[in-house]
């Protein structure tokens, strides 16, 4: 306990300051958001009941132990004290027995709540998908699901009984103390609010001091990891050896700064300790003095002396875990924010179903807009985008980085929902393309197709798990993966993906293409820079195979690599979130607009 309080202070500056908003809301000592949890009333009532029992048992143990001690002090025989000793044993173990029951109760309750949150979160991620993940990042999403929920669980287990005990046990114990000796009662009652006041005060001061130095702290504490990440750069410039001294110096600087803050931060724990010990000492001395003048007897004095530390114990326990519980508290806040932030899900509202795309089908959109809710400001990625495509057209999408190519592909794939505008499929209006009957006929091929940690066969047949060996062999031949399979120790049944056999970028792209081959329902292909990081020779090999897959399909192909444009029927040029030009390559060249200047910029040097 001693360490954990202070440890919170040591580590907290290390964390990035993205939780500030949640932290501000969480300044209150007791977290209000707890009271919104389902079943919380019942559990709090049960806990309160157990706290009353625990308080009574504590009183019982003090009573029986004092009785035994007093009798022994009066010269009674040990054997006559069996009843009192038995009672003491019962009460002493009873206190822990109640804690046992309480833990059992909470273990289940906290798990149920955590499981509920986890279920909501994982459902949100796997139905709302890329939109949600993109907004918070893959790392944050998985961390929130795994660590965040676990922290909430631990937080509930930790904080609920502490709150109940803090509110009930001191109140319960102060009654017998008063009845036995009102002077001691007054001492412990006066001290209690003082402790709370000073702790809150010192906590604030330390917090402010830490906040003032936050920036400095962050730089100092991140210096080490920063140096490790850039260690190869330092080495390339021959600066790495001398940088070692720097690391030590900065770390020592961090130590001194931390200790300065700790001196105050630890003080709040110290003050609590001081008040508690001093009041126990004061009670003891006052009792002694009043025993001397005969106004008190040994039995009540001993009982009070045993009860006094127990009276303060819930406060000490609450304070000790307060810092440790902050993580869970912040996690609960972030999860609730993430779940609240969910946009209405269009997939649930099922308008007339979309037919399978065919060569007469038509997709029209007008005035589409899409805005990202960044943390501080909204960023308008697309605005007033209108278009119409029909049949098996191949649409090339070009534009500088940040022009909105990826956002448009995301909308077309139905991963995100437009904020404005209308979409019509064959004259049927659809609020968005985020719907299962659209998803089932599209395939999305990004720059880095995701390979799952599974066998190559499972990865290939991802869209069509029932694919036969012949079908798979055919797809493998189409995309040119035979050589790889021949090389693999267990052929199609080799594990690939993270942590197993890694595939190169080109091979991963081929696996993604094979998935398309295997699923006959796929009529629409969406590419987002599929060859951007491939070497030119691999790209050359893949191009023909990709083009053959594009036949008899509607294609949207966003890329920087302009040679693809010759194979496209229609080209959209994006700039600043709008389609600024649209037409065939010849038309655009002839028009001499943005597209041809882009081409010139690229080819001018080469020519």
């Amino acid at each position, binding site marked *: 306990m*001693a*360490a954990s309080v202070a440890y919170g202070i040591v580590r907290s500056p290390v964390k990035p300051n993205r939780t500030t908003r949640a932290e501000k809301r969480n300044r209150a000592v007791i977290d209000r958001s707890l009271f919104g949890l389902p079943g919380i009333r019942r559990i709090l009532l049960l806990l309160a009941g157990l706290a009353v029992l625990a308080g009574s048992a504590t009183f019982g143990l003090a009573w029986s*132990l004092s009785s035994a*001690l007093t009798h*022994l*002090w009066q*010269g009674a025989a*040990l054997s006559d004290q069996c009843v009192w000793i038995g009672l003491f*044993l019962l009460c002493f*173990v009873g206190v*822990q027995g109640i804690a*046992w029951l309480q833990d059992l109760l909470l*273990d289940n309750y906290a798990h149920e709540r955590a*499981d509920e949150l*986890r279920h909501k979160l994982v459902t949100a*991620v*796997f*139905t709302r998908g890329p939109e949600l993940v993109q907004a918070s990042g*893959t790392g944050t999403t998985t961390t929130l699901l795994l660590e965040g929920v676990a922290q909430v669980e631990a937080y509930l287990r930790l904080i609920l009984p502490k709150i109940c005990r803090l509110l009930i046990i001191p109140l319960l114990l102060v009654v017998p103390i008063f009845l036995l000796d009102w002077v001691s009662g007054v001492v412990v009652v006066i001290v209690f609010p003082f402790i709370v006041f000073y702790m809150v005060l010192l906590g604030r001061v330390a917090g402010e001091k830490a906040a003032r130095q936050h920036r400095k702290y962050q*730089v100092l504490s*991140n210096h080490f990891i920063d140096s*490790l*990440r*850039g260690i190869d750069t330092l080495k*390339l*410039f021959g600066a*790495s*050896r001398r940088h070692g001294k720097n*690391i*030590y110096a900065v770390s*020592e600087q961090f*130590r001194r700064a931390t200790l300065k803050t*700790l001196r105050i931060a630890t003080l709040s724990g110290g003050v609590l300790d001081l008040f508690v*010990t*001093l009041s126990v*000492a004061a009670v003891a*001395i006052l009792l*002694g003095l009043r*025993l001397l003048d005969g106004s008190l007897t*040994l039995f009540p*004095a*001993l009982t009070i002396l*045993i009860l006094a*530390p127990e009276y303060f114990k819930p406060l000490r326990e609450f304070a000790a875990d307060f810092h440790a519980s902050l993580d869970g508290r912040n996690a609960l806040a972030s999860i609730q924010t993430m779940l609240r932030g969910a946009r209405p899900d269009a997939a649930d509202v099922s308008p007339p179903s979309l037919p399978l795309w065919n060569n007469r089908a038509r997709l029209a959109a007008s005035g589409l807009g899409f805005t990202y809710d960044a943390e501080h400001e909204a960023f308008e990625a697309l605005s007033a985008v209108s278009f119409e495509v029909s049949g098996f057209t191949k649409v090339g999408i070009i534009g500088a*980085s940040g022009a909105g190519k990826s956002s448009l592909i995301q909308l077309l794939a139905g991963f995100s929902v437009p904020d404005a505008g209308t979409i019509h499929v064959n004259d049927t209006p659809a609020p968005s393309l985020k719907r299962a009957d659209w*998803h089932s006929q599209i395939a999305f091929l990004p720059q880095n197709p995701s390979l799952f940690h599974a066998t190559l066969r499972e990865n290939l047949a991802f*869209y069509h798990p029932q694919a036969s060996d012949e079908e798979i062999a055919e797809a493998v031949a189409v995309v040119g993966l035979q050589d790889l399979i021949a090389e693999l120790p267990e052929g199609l049944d080799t594990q690939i993906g*993270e942590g197993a056999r890694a595939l190169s970028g080109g091979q991963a792209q081929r696996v993604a293409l094979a998935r398309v081959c295997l699923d006959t329902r796929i009529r629409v292909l969406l590419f987002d820079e599929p060859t951007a990081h*491939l*070497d030119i*020779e691999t790209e050359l090999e893949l*191009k023909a195979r990709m083009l053959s897959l594009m036949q008899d399909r509607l294609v949207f192909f966003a890329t*920087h*690599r302009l*040679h693809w444009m*010759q194979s496209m029927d229609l080209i959209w040029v994006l700039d600043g979130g709008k389609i600024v030009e649209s037409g065939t390559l010849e038309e655009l060249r002839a028009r001499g607009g943005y597209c041809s200047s882009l081409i010139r*910029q*690229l080819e001018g*040097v*080469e020519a």
Partner: protein
Amino acid sequence: MSAPSAHDKSPRAKAGSRAGRRGDRWIRPFFKQYRGALILALLLGVATYVFASALMFSSGYLISRAAEAPGNIVAIFVPVALVRIFGVGKPILQYAERLVSHNWILRMTSSLRLKLYNALERDAIFFKQRFRTGDILGLLAEDIGHIQNLYLRSIFPLIRAWVLTVLIVVCLGFFSLWFALAMLLMLSVIVLLVPLVSALRQGACEARRKTMKNQLYEQLTDNVLGVSDWIISGRSDEYTQTYRASEEALRGVEAKLHRASRNRDLLLQVLYALVVVALLAWAAFQFGGSYGGAADWIAAFVLGFFPLIEVFAPLPKAAVEMNSYRDSADRLGRLPHEDETAADTGERARAVSENPSEERPLSAPDDTPRQDAAEHISATPRAPLTLAIKGLAYRYSAASRSVLHDIDLTLAPGEKLAILGRSGAGKSTLAALIRGDLVPTRGSVELGGVATCALGDRITEYVGVVQQQSYLFNATLAENLRIGNQRASDEELWEVLESVGLGELGRRLPSGLDTLVDEAGLRFSGGEQHRIALARVLLSDVPLVILDEPGVGLDPVSEQLLLDTLFKTLRDKTLIMITHHLQGVSLMDRVIFIEDGSLCLSGSPGELAQSNAYYQKLLAFDTGSAR
């Protein structure tokens, strides 16, 4: 893994003996460092609880004594004074203990960090490539945090409890040897047996929990990355169910752990109760039988035990947690020794990664250490600084396939060379050999008549590198630039910024050169980061520059602008550009293609465009006029 070669100076046996002591390189040696502060922290920790116990002890005696002799203030004078001393002293000691122990821990952290840095520094060039997947650096940095915790939460509490146990037994020994021994037996169960059994029984469970959690982490990350595929395939529910099933399995283990600690705490409480009763019985036997007098001590001995429960309570948890630090200690233990020769490092360092990527051509230089600079200090490259590569071959170990073979190449000062080839063809390995980070298995790489691998860190005076991913340190722009040349003046920095096309940007920064590079709202774009990297190289003023896929990740227009700047500023230098497509290649003097580790095509871009069909095909493809 590390088969001997001509350059291998360290026999396996030596590595083996090192492995023996590697376990304690990161934890035990620090007990010796700053020993004074450590002992002080432990003493203060023990003293805190001695005072806490003494407070209740003297209070118990005080009221018993006072009850016995009403009116006699002198009788309780000493106990009252003691109660005051212990009451004031305990919180002060505890406060001091926290500061001293944190000070010690943070000091040790500084040393640990330096040690970790030095262990990584030697092999820095290859480190990132080896651990491309996963944030191994973040993990290692966290491991140091775990070691901090190991001291604070496990080692300190255990030592404190053991010392206190010895003190209790010794004190009781003055009164009764037999009871002291009985107490030793009971307390041993509390401070040794229960923690040990918990550590053994729950340790296995805890390890299983950790493995499951890690697997779940990997599985979830994998699938969140592929979330769009799950949605498109309409199989989302399938995965959510799998995931919940895994979580349920994990919960099973966790519930078991919780149950175990719940039951253990109940058991401990029974033990404490027995100790209290034993103390009561013994004290009654030893001091009882009369009204007051010696019987004043009974309450003292019994009450004195209560505060000590707080010392014993965290022990089982501390012992269980010891297990979970083992991973951290192991991971750090597998790092190369900070003062061993590079030859030993390869095998060890590679073992740190659980997943050595097979695709990477650049891996640990197992048996081919860079010679230590000091040994060859005499050899200095002489002008003209011609780069001569003769009969070069390279393989990672005798057993593996060679990555490069039969490479012959001469590059006169000022010549510009482009290296093309598929990923994995050996381009990066060739660059590493040129920089002397790897030692050729056969043949030689010489710069101005000296083997580059013999130059040690002095290679940085001759060869500069613009990396694929240039790292910007979280420091000021000036500090970031001066990595290239510490002694550069502000004027030189501005001059170089101007030449890489960042002059305008530099002037717009709120504090100019002294602006922190990550200050709120200020983010350098990919192109700008490359330009800063170029500025560093220009400042270091080296005759030969290697560009490692300089435009990767940029859109074609930005890439072309960057290439223009590169060629303009590096005009007078020897230039080697590794690239995976043809942009900018026409401006080079010579192009080579590497395929399967050997040169398959070589010539000036002009010649090749005229006469080589393959090159023509690629060129036509790249510039977009292919059909």
